[in-house]
């Protein structure tokens, strides 16, 4: 109950911002932060709960973005439909990746996801209708009432996606699904032996995680009015999605949220202030520091602090 009140307050906060704040920059930056919240939450469902490291975030993100762009080019379908298709396509790819977990564990799964990313990028480079290597410029339609600007609309859409994916992750974490996934992480053999339907659970986690990443990618073509393979399948998305839960904490649904907000806000600030390579350095240093010194992330530190008091 408390969670839903909190979620409602946050949602109301987003709407209030859209109504009151006039700086468009706030929404551009906010959109990016929320997008990473979705990506990190999605990553954590598979990586944090089930212990399968996914380096292929760009593949799912990119398939989502391209599904939306191609659908828009073909039919000028509204954003909601684009997002739905993106979720379905990326979810399908996630299901495929889930089948790989039949045979592959640990680093082997991680390598397979790198391979999936390269293959997906190559497919879109060679698909002329989707713009091929030259990319596709899209003309953004007018925003739908009551929004007066498109970016505010995208901000609210991503806000809804973020709240939705966090709620999903929280539900999974607390239900038998989460318990099953944790059992898989601790020991897949033991889980299997004690009657956990490991394959079903893994497929579910992969599909959901992929679909949510697709949702995060779907509004990107409209955000940029442009899509192009090299930047869409950029490794930066993999870095952000993996580093945020590691920094925030993988055991609790709040971990990826804290990590993503912290990391992408920091990156936004660095981009518009010192403006240099520091951007990537921050991620690397924070990532190393946290996995070495605070294995349970910010959430873990916070818990330790509360316990010691």
């Amino acid at each position, binding site marked *: 109950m408390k969670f839903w009140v*909190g*979620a409602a*307050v*946050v949602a109301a*906060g987003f709407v209030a911002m859209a109504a009151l704040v*006039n*700086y*468009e*920059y*706030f*929404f*551009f*930056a*906010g959109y*990016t*932060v929320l997008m990473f919240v979705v990506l990190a939450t999605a990553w954590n469902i598979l990586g944090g709960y089930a212990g399968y490291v996914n380096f292929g975030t760009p593949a799912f993100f990119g398939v989502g973005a391209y599904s939306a762009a191609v659908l828009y080019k073909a039919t000028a379908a509204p954003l909601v439909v684009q997002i739905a298709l993106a979720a379905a396509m990326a979810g399908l790819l996630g299901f495929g990746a889930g089948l790989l977990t039949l045979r592959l564990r640990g680093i082997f799964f991680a390598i397979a996801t790198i391979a999936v990313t390269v293959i997906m990028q*190559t497919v879109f*480079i060679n698909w002329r209708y989707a713009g*091929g*290597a*030259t*990319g596709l*410029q*899209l*003309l*953004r339609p007018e925003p739908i009432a009551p929004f007066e600007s498109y*970016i505010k609309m995208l901000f609210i859409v991503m806000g809804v996606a973020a709240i939705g994916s966090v709620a999903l992750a929280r539900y999974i974490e607390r239900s038998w699904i989460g318990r099953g996934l944790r059992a898989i992480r601790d020991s897949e053999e033991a889980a299997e032996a004690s009657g956990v339907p490991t394959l079903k659970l893994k497929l579910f986690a992969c599909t959901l995680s992929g679909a949510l990443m697709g949702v995060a990618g779907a509004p*990107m073509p409209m*955000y*940029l*009015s*442009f899509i*192009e393979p*090299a*930047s869409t399948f*950029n490794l*930066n998305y993999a870095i952000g999605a993996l580093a945020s839960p590691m920094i925030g904490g993988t055991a609790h649904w*709040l971990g990826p*949220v*804290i990590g993503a*907000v*912290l990391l992408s*806000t*920091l990156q*936004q*600030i660095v*981009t*518009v*202030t010192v*403006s*240099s*390579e520091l*951007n990537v350095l921050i991620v690397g240093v924070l990532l190393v520091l946290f996995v070495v010194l605070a294995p349970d992330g910010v959430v873990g530190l916070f818990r330790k602090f509360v316990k010691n008091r």
Partner: protein
Amino acid sequence: MNFTRRKVLGAVGAGAVAAALPRRKAFAQQGPIKIGMSMPQTGSLGAGGKAELVAIRMWVDDVNQKGGLLGRKVELIAYDDQTNPALTPGIYTKLLDVDKVDLLFAPYGTVPTAPIMPLVKQRGLLLMGNFSFQVNHTVKHDMWFNNLPAADAQSWFTGFFEQGQKAGAKSIAFLAADQEFAQNLANGAKGLADKAGMKSVYSQNYPPTTSDFSSLIRAVRAARPEMVFVCSYPNDSVAIVRAVNEIGVGPSVKLFGGGMVGLQFTPVMESLGSMLNGIVNYNSYVPGVKYPGIDEFFKRYQPKAAEEKVDPLGFYLPPFGYAMGQMLEQAVNGTKSIDQKKLAQYLHSNTMQTIVGPISFNKDGEWAQSRMLMIQFRGIADKNLEQWRQPGKQVVLYPSQYKTGEVVMPFDKARGK
């Protein structure tokens, strides 16, 4: 209660941004005129972007020494976009909404620029384009002025195909990187080849991550083309030039080159040295082309570049960055205003005088008269930085008013083999 923390963090972030903004003393009472831009300083276009930024800062200093624009000091705010198009919309709204800049320069390159076109169109803003390629194609913004010496891919390579036609070449091979910019250029070049009645005997797009070009060059040789047109990015350009020296493209080839990006950058030219001989390639400026004021510009740029460890000669991009500033300066002084509409009108209807020659714009906001040079590398020695300052090492073949020599063909002869 957990979620309020997120908002607090966001607010703290915004506060930190505001606090970190540069605050300087004003020139006149109205405060400075702020010009904002993002510039790739890391990522694939970082090397070029850094060098150009040195030149743009030189222009800012020069203007301020002359008393600023309209009596107001000029201030440049530039952020690094990491050659990442996902960052530029955020950066430009930040420049406009938070930094309250008065005028905009575009980032160097096409990909970082594309996402900000809808933004400037929607807000009715003047944007000085910066070596982007056909980025106004779908948006059609009438306050866009792109500083690139070719209006489209065809005018970019007219010189290359003119030489080929003169030599009576009938067949051509295409080799292009599977990458946004290279593909656009290659498509234009294919149009020119069709027009000239040349037969394409080989056409291949290669992935930018290719680590060895031996087999590709061998395949080009097997097709026995009379011309080879290459559209490549810096890393591949180096690898291709090396592979051509090793494998050879065969005696049938009269002309080789065209659109190889990277062969304009000093570190690349210096390390390839004599391997470049004979290649015909585009360039924006080479020593020997007489533009008023450009020699003086390089005299001041080169020591600065050495200090900042960017392209030490800077023939390719920096003078154009400086010229971009000069055009804005002329428009502001000409209209006595920084009103975006008036400036755009002025830029559309007047010819600008710059250190890269006179510039006027067509209705799409591209150069009305293309002036992309086609040059041939000749008599280059290994490991000699000084040679590049001399005219005649890069012989200008096109356009005719800047011509400094005749092309040497076939390719093998031009390489001195």
